[in-house]
């Protein structure tokens, strides 16, 4: 009975964690990091190529900081610093 359960679990786990992902909220770890809608360079990391906001399960942010990131991205979008979507034509 005991032998049966040990075989499958570790292999399955290694498949699931194929790419490494940093754990924990980077803003909680480093309090000098500021979230500001005017600093688009820092916000780029939390936006996909298509302009979508990266979900918390990917970015690893805690609820509080994800909320601040979300507000900042929306403000930056409103004043044409970040895109709402890829494919805005400029002509």
């Amino acid at each position, binding site marked *: 009975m005991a032998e049966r359960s040990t075989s499958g679990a570790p292999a399955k786990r290694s498949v699931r964690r194929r790419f490494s992902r940093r754990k924990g909220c980077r803003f909680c770890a480093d*309090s000098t990091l*500021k979230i500001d809608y005017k600093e688009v360079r820092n916000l780029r990391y939390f936006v996909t190529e298509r302009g979508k906001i990266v979900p918390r399960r990917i970015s690893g942010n805690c609820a509080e900081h994800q909320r601040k990131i979300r507000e900042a991205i929306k*403000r930056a979008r409103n*004043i*044409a610093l970040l895109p709402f979507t890829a494919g*805005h034509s*400029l002509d």
Partner: protein
Amino acid sequence: MRTYENIMIVHPDKVGDEYNAIVEKFKGVLSDLNANLLKVDEWGARKLVYPVKKQGRGSYVLTVFEGEPTIIDEFERRLRLDESIIKFQTVQLEKGFVEDDSAAAAEEGQGAEEEE
């Protein structure tokens, strides 16, 4: 009195004297409304991420000011009336105005510690 931060995008065709006149005009509007100007930062012409009023570029002007909440309506109405302003956004700064980022961070840290 509350602290606000406004970003306006000036039409890219306005350059030189015309552009300066617009910036001065809105500084004047703010002082007429009894706002206390704390900072005016001209970012210069930048590429817009998406076209606004068919323009791909624009000059960003950031202003930080203190004033009563009631003046915001009037200030934004004036911005809306001026055709050379293609977009603007006003944000309230909850923590007030902080000039230097590093000094501000240190002050905030101290403040939090004292409270606890």
